[in-house]
């Protein structure tokens, strides 16, 4: 048997122990970076209103200079001041709407995933499908016309628009975990529905929920802005980053800062937040991470890749390259 010779030649020590700390350190910086990136918009949102000061006089719209270091916006207000003021509603309304959507979608989706009664699932999910089929814009238009909801109403509305979507994703993400023997065992223990559903099934699909919620939050921001333009919720000229991006876009080539700065803040918020949660989940299940050190594989494995040369050289199909 010639195998050993190869083995001998490639004999290689696992040697140096690789510890968890190094992994943690590796996982730490993106988390920090995410937090840092998100911190800028968050701090601005939090502290901005405190240092915004009084509104100065308006000047012409979309101008630069004249004491406005980020220029003026579409109605001649100071962009910097609008930015200082505009984070709070973004963060509050969007977060509230997303949280609300999830607060309803998660139990709904989990209930649909966990039930064994087909009728219950249809009862929970099919009406939502009806909502899905109606363009959200039409819904918002209607509400804009019939009611005149304030910020809270807006959060509700935007949440409503997002529920069917989120519930479907929750359901899809949870359905595999919901059928695991572990769930049967939990039921056997008489575990409460919430602990089973949220504590186990939800926990298993947490990464998917986080990914969806993180992206959804950004979508919600702009939905709020669209709604504002249609007269729902915040005023159409409100100090709100998403509204600013939306309303100042006509001046993009005259006074780009009025669009670019709030857009960047939103990008930072979304990117930073998502990266942070990525890193957090990474650390959370650190013990499910890849093993510390892959097994030292014989060098021969790399010969495998030679087979790809076949395609370059137009070798006949039956070149000898079977695994063994």
């Amino acid at each position, binding site marked *: *048997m010639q*195998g*050993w010779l*190869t*083995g*001998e030649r*490639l*004999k*290689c*020590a*696992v*040697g140096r*122990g*690789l*510890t*968890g700390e190094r*992994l943690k350190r590796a996982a730490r910086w993106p988390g920090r970076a995410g937090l840092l990136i998100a911190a800028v918009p968050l701090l601005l949102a939090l502290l901005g209103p405190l240092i915004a000061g009084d509104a100065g006089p308006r000047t012409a719209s979309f101008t630069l200079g004249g004491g406005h270091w980020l220029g003026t916006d579409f109605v001649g207000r100071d962009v910097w001041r609008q930015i200082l003021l505009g984070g709070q509603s973004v963060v509050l309304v969007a977060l509230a709407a997303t949280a609300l959507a999830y607060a309803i979608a998660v139990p709904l989706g989990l209930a649909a995933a966990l039930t*064994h009664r*087909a009728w219950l699932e249809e009862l929970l999910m099919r009406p939502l499908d009806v909502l899905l089929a109606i363009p959200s814009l039409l819904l918002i238009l209607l509400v804009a016309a019939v009611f005149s909801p304030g910020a809270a109403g807006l959060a509700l509305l935007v949440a409503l628009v997002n529920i069917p979507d989120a519930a479907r994703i929750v359901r899809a993400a949870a359905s*595999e975990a919901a*059928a*695991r*023997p*572990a769930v*049967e*065992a*939990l*039921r*056997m*223990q*008489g*575990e*409460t529905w919430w602990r089973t559903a949220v*504590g*186990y099934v939800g*926990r*298993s699909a947490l990464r998917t929920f986080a990914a969806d919620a993180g992206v959804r939050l950004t979508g919600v921001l702009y939905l709020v802005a669209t709604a504002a333009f249609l007269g729902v919720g915040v005023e159409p000229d409100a100090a709100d980053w998403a509204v600013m991006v939306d309303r100042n876009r006509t001046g993009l080539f005259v006074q780009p800062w009025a669009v670019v700065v709030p857009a960047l803040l939103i990008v930072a918020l979304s990117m930073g937040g998502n990266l942070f949660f990525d890193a957090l989940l990474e650390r959370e299940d*650190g*013990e*499910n*991470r*890849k*093993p*510390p*050190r*892959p*097994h*030292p*594989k*014989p060098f*021969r*494995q790399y010969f495998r890749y030679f087979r790809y040369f076949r395609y370059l050289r137009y070798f006949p*199909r*039956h*070149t*000898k*390259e*079977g*695994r*063994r």
Partner: protein
Amino acid sequence: MSAAANVVAEVDDLRVEVGGRAVVDGVSLRVRAGAVTALVGASGSGKTTTGLALLGAYPPDARVTGTVTVTDDLVGHVPQHPAAVLNPARRAGALLADIARTQVRHLPRRERAEAAEHRVTEALSRAQLQDGAALLRRYPHQLSGGQQQRVVLAQALLLGARVVVADEPTTGQDALTKRRIVAELTSVVQQGIGVLLLSHDLDVVRELADDIVVLKGGRVVEAGPAEQVVSAPRHTWTRQMFAPQEGTRQMFALREGAAGAGPRVGAAGAEPRDGAAGAAPREGASGAGLRTGPVPDPLPVLEAPVPEVPVLEVQDLTAHHRGRGSRRTVEVLRNASLRLQAGRRVAAVGRSGSGKTTLGRCLAGLHRTYEGEVLLDGVPLPRSLRDRTPAQLAAVQYVFQDAQASFDEHRTLLAQVARTAIRLRGAAPADAAREAGELLAEVGLGEQHLHSRPGRLSGGELQRAALARALLARPRVLICDEITSGLDTVTRRGILTTLDRHLSEQPDLALVWITHDLSTVTAADQILVLDAGNTVEQGPANRILTAPRHPFSVALVEASTGARVTVAGA
């Protein structure tokens, strides 16, 4: 060929340290081509961890030192929990087909499909999956535990790797299948493949192993050629492990274990009666009621009238699998009936895939699609456990065949186990935790395990934890589905002792014991022999184990005892 030239894998002074604890400590072993190296040892002694090292897999966050050398990048692996390596979203045959594809690349394109299929079929038959092709079209969850294991075994056999790590490759198999698998493994080894066998099944080890390495607490306590280790064990631990089986072949392990345990010892209380033989009942124990299905059975069906109401009664249970909204079904269990009195034990044995788990799951409320009745104290139990009251849930507890899959991988063991007491018995959290801790300690799980997540426990440890979780409910009917398959003889004896103690302390506890290990069923009051969903024989343990009547039972008993049995009444 020198010994060195034969070595296909070598582990040298491997030390795996997790959280400051050396799980494997200085283990060295060699796997030679055409030979089987068996790694034996107590549950939790580090076998799986060592075996995984050959695959280059280590526990996360582990500190690893030592050398592992394998001559080939392909290593066959039959893991301890076969379900875990079967992709839930793909059909059972997906990986098999892909492995076969890689092996037929040299053929002209037209011939590949056929050649690949041929290889798969061959691997299936070698892995003793008769109905293989049909099973491969199912999803993993639609296979029984033993079938899953054989699919994974077929993968390893198909792979044709020169090194195979087989972690308990036969635990889920009935004696008949096991013998064939062992035979198959022998022929595989003869083709020059090196096998690292990690097993608790000393019969298999004895039959297969060329070298034996005995582990204890992560250290090698003894190693050497098989004959030497088996016949002249040097270490007390080895002796302990191999000794009791000699002669008795483990047949009365339970009884022996129970003998030392408590006053209510098996021999008297659990002495099986043979209704057919008309032996007088002892000490008024009426035993378990006995009814058989429609299968021709020369035995009289019923015993004398039973005075007490059985705690659990199953009448004409016909279980099938089906999807939603359709009447089309696959019957997997037909007309099973049994009566279980308080304090009694009934064992279900049979081929792998014969419906034992399905029976247990029907009782536990985990399988709803059946006809027939399941009565608890004469009251029908709701089909789904979701509709059962906490009292009903507590009364009927089921210990899962796949212990690993039945735990929440995110929570620590103690937290999970203790919930049973909190939810089903209304215990205060602190009391529940204390009680759970005690029970876990009793089954051999120490402090370091209590606060670990399930992923950090060995297969046997999880099995024991699952048992503790069910016991904590103080059930009246405890259904144990192969709970000793992952345990070494010593630990197994300990578990049986524990069970015995519970049986004696809780006179109303009745046991449904599902197993392939006939040596553990001797103490049962009644045995149910299942084949392909039919109850082929049902009767007192003693009678069935010594004088089985049905040809299938005969074969089963013969296969597990290795001795020929005279067929009573035949």
